[in-house]
């Protein structure tokens, strides 16, 4: 209880300072609204906000799930098969450092204004780190564990399902935790540039109407979504990796 209070106190203090600064006569409300007015705005635009949260989450989920699933699958394959690894890893190592938002202009040229742009950008954002982390995770498995399973008569698919994948999970979760927040950020940026819907679109709308209250509402929502996603991933990690605790 004390720990929870200790972590809530700085947040409360931060919001109080925000409120006080926003109420200073020298600070125009349209530039820096007080926290209370942002909360009021949140309830005013509730419907619009929920609709756009849905769009963003939908795109992020699709891109992130496809990126993660294919990253894990190909990562496992490359981790097991040296030829696939030699082909895939150099390519992934070159593409991985490129910021995923850097792909948005070219995606807009290729796909126009459509859902594909944020989805593909999120896919790129999540695929490569998860792929590389999965390969590392498989390579880090003690070979004697693999051989021990083989001498027991374990088939290849069973070996992957029951031994390799579970033991690569710690590395996979490192990739997931790194990239979940980044995927949300990439999705929002893609929406700002390419799509008239989603949280990114609301941010651009706030900017064009000089509605800083709306911008702050969207920023708070983005922060909360990232927090919930990160918390969920950590919870799943703890559940799946009890053996490491």
């Amino acid at each position, binding site marked *: 209880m004390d720990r929870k209070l200790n972590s809530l106190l700085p947040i409360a203090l931060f919001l109080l300072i925000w409120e006080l600064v926003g109420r200073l006569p020298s600070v125009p409300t349209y530039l820096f609204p007080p926290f209370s007015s942002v909360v009021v705005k949140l309830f005013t635009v509730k419907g619009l906000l929920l609709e756009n949260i849905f769009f963003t989450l939908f795109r992020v989920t699709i891109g992130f799930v496809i990126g993660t699933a294919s990253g894990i699958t190909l990562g496992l394959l490359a981790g097991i098969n040296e030829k696939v690894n030699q082909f895939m890893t150099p390519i992934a190592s070159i593409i991985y450092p490129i910021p995923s938002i850097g792909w948005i202009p070219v995606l807009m040229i290729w796909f126009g204004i459509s859902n594909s742009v944020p989805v593909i950008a999120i896919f790129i954002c999540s695929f490569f780190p998860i792929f590389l982390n999965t390969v590392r995770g498989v390579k880090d498995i*003690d070979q*004697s*564990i693999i*051989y*021990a*399973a*083989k*001498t*027991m*008569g*374990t*088939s290849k698919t*069973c070996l992957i399902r*029951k*031994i390799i994948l*579970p*033991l690569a*999970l710690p590395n996979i979760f490192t990739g997931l935790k790194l990239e979940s927040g980044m995927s949300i950020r990439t999705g929002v940026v893609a929406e700002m540039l390419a799509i008239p819907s989603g949280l990114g679109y609301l941010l651009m709308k706030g900017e064009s109407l000089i509605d800083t209250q709306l911008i702050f509402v969207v920023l708070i929502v983005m922060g909360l979504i990232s927090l919930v996603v990160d918390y969920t991933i950590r919870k799943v990690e703890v559940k799946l*990796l*009890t*053996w*490491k605790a």
Partner: protein
Amino acid sequence: MEGLKIKSVSVGILKNISFTLEKGKVGVLLGPNGAGKTTLLNAISGIIPAKNGHIYLDGKEITTVPIEERDISYIFQNLALFPHLTVYENIAFPLHIKKEENIGKKVSRILKKVDILALKDRYPLRLSGGEKQKVAIARALVTNPELLLLDEPFASLDFEMRKFIRAEFLKVIKEFSLTTLIVTHDPYEAEELGNNIIKIRHGKLVHTDNDVNRIKVRSLKKVTKDIALAEFDNFSLIVPFSSGRSDHYCVEFLEEDLYISSSKPPVPTLNTLRGKIISHKENAERVHVKIDINGTIIKGHIPWYMWHEINKEEVYIIIKYRGTKLKGVNDGGL
């Protein structure tokens, strides 16, 4: 195992490895680090392929059988427990793979047998070294394999724990009558563990217990403080003598400490005997022979290129003085 040749990155090439391990016996592969012991176990288990030669398990050749299909349990030096599975799940794993019935009953039985029932829900990371050892042994035994391989399984334990676990292990092995091949670099451990010690050095088999000649001494006379005359039924040998007493003795010497020739040594030589070859068996490098010395049969070998020069009816055998070992029969040694 016959004429096995294995190529390994760490120890180079293992050549012409041949030995037999009787069903239900414990064999010990003894040799220094880098001798090729683990490589040999890896070849038997199927982890690395044999370049030449044959491996038989219970009469069936398994040289080219895939690793998954050999009925062999392997306890690795680091034990290779599955860290993400509980003790119970680790032991049940091979049974699930083999789709066996009554898995729960079988696992409980072995858990009780090696005294780790209380640990069944723990993960390997939360076990002590000795507990992990027991889990690895239980997992290896639960499927009742044709052959059990162990690669220095007690190396990571301290002296007291090693002694205790080794004794427990031998008890269980005896109970299961498992054919077992254990790797060790510790000669004392080898003596304690094995019915059959197979020495390996620089990728070559030095000898197995099958290569040892062991002759019961009829009477023993001390010549000096360090030398004794061991008398047999129809001949005698001069052998090194160390302190100690026993009621009965035997003299041991390896095949490789015998020199066999058709001609009498030009000068009188210590421990020279005369006999005749009563049987022989050829392989790629040498001819293994049995020699009758006035009714006592000893084993030896002759390089194949010398074989045609040998007069089988009359051969001279020189037994190296330094190669002979006097052993007490009653007390197991001097």
